[in-house]
């Protein structure tokens, strides 16, 4: 990873569909070099995936998202790793993190509706061994996700000409 790699990552994070030829012009390097660098970034799993950022509310395929916080008794030798690995297998779990603070694990869970989410938590997550306590927090509205705004903000005005 050098400065050019960082620039490539920044540009792809902004728009992963930017053609390699355009990246080459932007960075002032050859197209072959861009391909080679991106291939390395992909091979090393620094680039995990190219995916669309979808505004579900606008798409009308309304889903319910909830943050689930868990208090977990860690396991000898494994700590939180094995239980986290188990929980992460559920497709309903969109993200999973180990946290400092009152709770240990934080999950982002999605479902078609509130019932589905609460059934998932009460039937699959809460009963697991080592889980001592759960808290379910329903997400009401998303304003910003992964650096992307989910609302229109008026742009400041500039004069059409200035020196």
């Amino acid at each position: 990873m050098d400065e050019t790699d960082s620039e490539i990552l920044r540009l792809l994070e902004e728009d992963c569909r930017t053609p390699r030829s355009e990246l080459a012009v932007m960075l002032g390097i050859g197209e072959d070099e861009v391909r080679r660098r991106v291939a390395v970034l992909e091979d090393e799993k620094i680039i995990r995936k190219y995916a669309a950022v979808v505004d579900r509310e606008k798409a009308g395929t309304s889903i319910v998202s909830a943050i689930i916080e868990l208090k977990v008794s860690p396991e000898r030798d494994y700590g939180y790793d094995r239980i986290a690995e188990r929980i992460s297998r559920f497709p309903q779990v969109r993200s999973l993190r180990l946290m400092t603070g009152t709770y240990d694990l934080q999950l982002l869970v999605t479902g078609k509706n509130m019932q589905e989410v609460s059934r998932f938590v009460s039937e699959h997550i809460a009963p697991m061994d080592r889980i001592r306590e759960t808290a379910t927090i329903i997400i009401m509205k998303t304003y910003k996700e992964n650096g992307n705004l989910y609302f229109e903000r008026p742009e400041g005005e500039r004069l059409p000409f200035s020196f």
Partner: protein
Amino acid sequence: MREFVSEKARVIPPSGIRKFFDIVLTMKDVISLGVGEPDFNTPWNVCEAGIYSIEQGNTAYTSNRGLQPLREAVARNLDQAYGIRYDPETEMIITTGVSEALDIAIRTIVDPGDEILVAQPCYVSYPPCVTLTGGKPVAVPCTEEDRFRLNPETLAERITKKTKGVIINFPNNPTGGVMAEGDLRAISDLVVDNDLVVISDEVYSELTYDSRHTAAASLPELRDRTITLNGFSKAYSMTGWRIGYLCAPQALCDAALKIHQYVMLCAPTIGQAAALEAMRSGEEEKNAMVAEYRVRRNLFVHGLNEIGLKCHTPEGAFYAFPSVKETGLSDVEFAERLLREQHVAVVPGSVFGEGGEGHVRCAYAVSRQNLSEALKRMGAFIESI
């Protein structure tokens, strides 16, 4: 009634692009590359600092020189970034934008009849500000062949017994040209031998893409005969906050401070609070903006050359200055027809003085999306000529 308007106010020319404004007002979908300011919003932490200063009731005048912590932060930054040392107590004034700094710098050094060399193409206010003091601006054209750097021979030819000083601006608006240390060395002998004072407007100093900026005052032989002007507008996207600064050896700075306190009193207090925050923690966002300008420059200059507008790669600021000579149109005709026919606004180079004719200034401080749309339209325009 007799003529109330002074002769000086009468002789300075009006803005060269008034009619372009009028045309733009009749259109809806103009892409403007005519803007001399960043398109980024001021970093939010900087805005918050401004808001907080109002909430705290810090809405009174500051000292004439400006807030002490701000001057200290600027002095530290100038030392670290460019190796130039100014005493924040005696050699610095916070001003209302670089515009004010320029005005008081010129008034500080010019007596009626003095000739001031002005490296051109240049920001439009240098020659009129000299004229208003009773001085005589003398153009020193910088040409494309010299990559828009100041040529020592051209400079030497313009020096007379009346020459008092020289105004330079690198990285340059409108050409994007820069002067490296060696280029400055090449003119410093002339400056010293003829006992000239240098006014160096370095407001684009943070926006260089291929090498670090060299400050004129970093050359020891120039340090004590240079007035350094800089500010927050371009580097931190703070044009509307109106904060700049003037640094000079104490004797010059004392004189400039007298003028500043009579004509301006102090720079805006809210803006100074915001600028202090920019100095303290604006580095990361500034670097991100510079990286984005570099990407846009590469895209845009490549695109210009592809559609047949020859353009040298500008090494600083956020302007491309392509030649339109091969189209057979003058720069004014080119700009006017491009605006009327393809709704893209650029500024004719001739409004920036000698050396600018036959070029147009395109500011790439607009989104990449708008840049590529502008290129498409400019390509179509060139096809249609």
